[in-house]
C-alpha cells in the first residue's frame, strides 16, 4: 500500500501561488502553514499581511487575516492582540514595510514587548513596485533607483533592523535565517515555530528575519539568486540567532511585575 509522505498543510489554501518563479515567499508561506498545523492553532491565529508582494498572503494562509496599511502591520497586530490576548497574532512584512516605512511601529512594538510574532522577509528590494532600492539593499547593489549601485553617502548604508530590535528590552527572540537550501529551510521552520511558541508562552516580542530571493528584480536565475544570498547577502546579514532571552527568568519576572502594577 502506498504511503503518503508529502501533503498540503491544512492551514494552506488550495490556491496556486501568484509569486514569481524562484521567489522565497511561497516557501515561507508553506512553512508558516506547517507550523500553524503542528502547533494546532489554526482556529485561534490571526495574521496581518503587509502591502507589497505578500499582500495576497490571505489567498494562501487559511486563518483569519486583517490587512494593514503599508508599514503598520505591527500596530494593527498590537490592537488585535491587546484586545484578544488569547489569539496568536503574527505579522508578515517585507523589508520596505518593516525596515523603512514601518520602522517606528516595529521598534516600539518590540520595546513594549508586544506578544507578537513578526515574520520579516528580507529580499533587499521593493518587489511589488518593480525593484526599487530598499533600506536593506546591499552596498553596490543596482536597483531601479540606485543606478550604478547603492552608494552609502547618496543612498545610506544597509540597515540591520534585527540588530536594532535586539537592543530593545521587550524583544525576546530574534533569529535570521534563509530559504536557499533544504538545511536553511528546516532552520527557518524551526525559527518560525519558536517565534510562535514565544508568543504562546507570553514572553514578549519575537521576530524571524528570513533572507529571501527575488530573482526577477535581481535579474538572476532562481539558482543564482540563492547563490547570491549565500555568498553576498549573508556578509551584511549573517545568519543565526541574534537574541534569545527566553530562558532569562528574572527578565520575565520583571515584565510580569510591571503587568500587575498596571491593574
Amino acid at each position, binding site marked *: 500500500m502506498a504511503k503518503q509522505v508529502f501533503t498540503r498543510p491544512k492551514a494552506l489554501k488550495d490556491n496556486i501561488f501568484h509569486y514569481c518563479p524562484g521567489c522565497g515567499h511561497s516557501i515561507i508561506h508553506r512553512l508558516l502553514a506547517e507550523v500553524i498545523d503542528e502547533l494546532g492553532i*489554526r*482556529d*485561534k*491565529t*490571526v495574521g*496581518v499581511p503587509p502591502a507589497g508582494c505578500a*499582500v*495576497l498572503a*490571505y489567498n494562501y494562509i*487559511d*486563518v*483569519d*487575516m*486583517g*490587512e*494593514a*496599511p503599508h508599514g*503598520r502591520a505591527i*500596530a*494593527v*497586530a*498590537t*490592537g*488585535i*492582540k*491587546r*484586545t*484578544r490576548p488569547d*489569539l496568536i497574532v503574527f505579522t508578515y512584512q517585507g523589508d520596505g514595510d518593516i525596515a523603512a516605512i514601518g520602522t*517606528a*511601529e516595529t*521598534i*516600539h512594538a518590540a520595546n513594549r514587548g508586544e506578544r507578537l510574532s513578526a515574520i520579516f522577509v528580507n529580499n533587499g528590494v521593493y518587489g511589488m513596485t518593480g525593484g526599487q532600492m530598499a533600506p536593506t539593499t546591499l552596498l553596490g547593489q543596482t536597483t531601479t533607483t540606485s543606478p550604478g549601485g547603492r552608494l552609502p553617502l547618496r543612498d545610506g548604508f544597509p540597515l540591520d533592523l534585527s540588530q536594532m530590535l535586539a537592543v530593545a528590552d521587550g524583544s525576546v527572540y530574534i533569529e535570521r535565517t534563509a530559504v536557499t537550501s533544504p538545511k536553511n529551510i528546516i532552520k527557518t521552520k524551526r525559527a518560525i515555530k519558536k517565534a510562535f511558541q514565544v508568543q504562546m508562552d507570553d514572553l514578549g516580542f519575537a521576530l524571524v528575519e528570513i533572507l529571501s530571493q527575488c530573482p526577477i528584480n535581481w535579474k538572476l536565475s532562481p539558482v543564482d539568486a540563492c547563490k547570491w544570498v549565500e555568498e553576498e547577502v549573508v556578509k551584511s546579514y549573517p545568519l543565526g540567532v541574534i537574541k534569545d532571552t527566553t530562558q532569562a527568568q528574572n527578565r520575565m519576572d520583571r515584565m510580569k511585575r510591571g503587568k500587575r502594577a*498596571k*491593574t
Partner: protein
Amino acid sequence: MTKQLMRGSHAIAEAATRAGCRFYAGYPITPQNELPEYMSVRFAQLEDATFVQAESELAAINMVMGASMAGVRAMTSSSSPGISLKQEGISYMAGMELPAVIVNIMRGGPGLGNIAPSQQDYLQATKGGGHGGYRTIVLAPCSGQELVTLTIKAFDLADAYRSPVILLGDGLMGQMMEPVIFPDPIDPAALPKKDWTLDGARGRDSRLIASLHLDPTEMEQFNWKLARKYAAICERETEHESYLLDDAVVAVVAFGTAARIAKGAVNRVRKAGLKAGLFRPITLWPFPGKELRDLTRTIKSLLVFEMNFGQMVEDVKLSVGEQARVHFHGRPGGIIPTPHDIGAAITKLIHRYGL
C-alpha cells in the same frame, strides 16, 4: 445620577467608557491631552480594557484599526495636526468598513498653527479627509452634556454603519467645564454581536478584512456599496437644533463652539428687538441640508458664522441655492469671538437689508 462639574475632554472619555469602549490608543497633543490621561486612569480600573500610549498618531490609529477588527469598541483622539496623520488609517477603516470613534479637538492651522479653539478642519472632516472618496459621520457637540450624548451616539453609529465616526470639537469644548450627567454604563458583552470580526476561525471558514480590490469590477461594486451606505446615512441620520427661528428674519448658521457663542449673540440682539435665530447642524456629515432648505421658505437671510475663513458656508450655499442670501462671518485665528462681535454682525445685516 448626580451632576458632576467636568472638563469636556474628561466627559468624552467617561462617556466613551460608559458606551462600552474598551480600547484606546493615542499620542500626546494639546489641547486634548486630558482625554488620554483620563483614559489611562479609567481603563486601569477595568479588567477588560486596554489603554496604549502609542509612539505616533499613525500607530495609534492603526492599533485602533486592529482592535476594531477584533470586535471591540475602540477610540482614538487627537488635535488637528495629529488628525492629518491619522487620515491614512481612517481611509483604510472606511475601506474595510471598520467602526471606530475618532475625536478631533481642533486647533488653529494650517501647519502647527496654534492651540487656540478653531474650526479649521470642517472640510477635512466632512469631505473624507484622506484618499479614496469615503465619508465619515461627523458629530459636532456644543456643550458638556452633548459631549456625553454624542460620544455615546458616535459609538452606536459607528457600529450600526460599520464606519469611522468623527467627534469634532475644539479647544474650548475640550477644556471648558460644565455640569454633566452620565447614563448608566453599557456592558460591552450586551452589545449586538458582530459577525465579521477576526477571532480565530473556530468552526467556520477563515475571514478576511481588507480594503484591497485588485479587480476593477469588484472595486466598483464595493464603492457603489459604500455610496448606498452613505446615501442611507444622509437619509436617516441628520440632526440639527433650531433656536428661536419661528419668527426670525435672519438665521445664524453655526456649529459647535461657534454655535454656542452665536446663541449668546441671538439672545443679545433679541433684547434689542431684532428677530434673529440660530440653525445649528449637529451632524456636519450628513449635513442637514434639507432642513435648512425648508427654513428658507420663511427666512431669506442666512449668516454663516465659523471659526475659520469659510468652510461650512459651502454646504449652506449648496443646500439653499438661490432660495436665500448667504452671508459669512468668520474668525480664523484662534481668537475666541464674543457674542457682542456676532451680535454686531447680525445687527449690521438686519439694518443693511432693512429686515
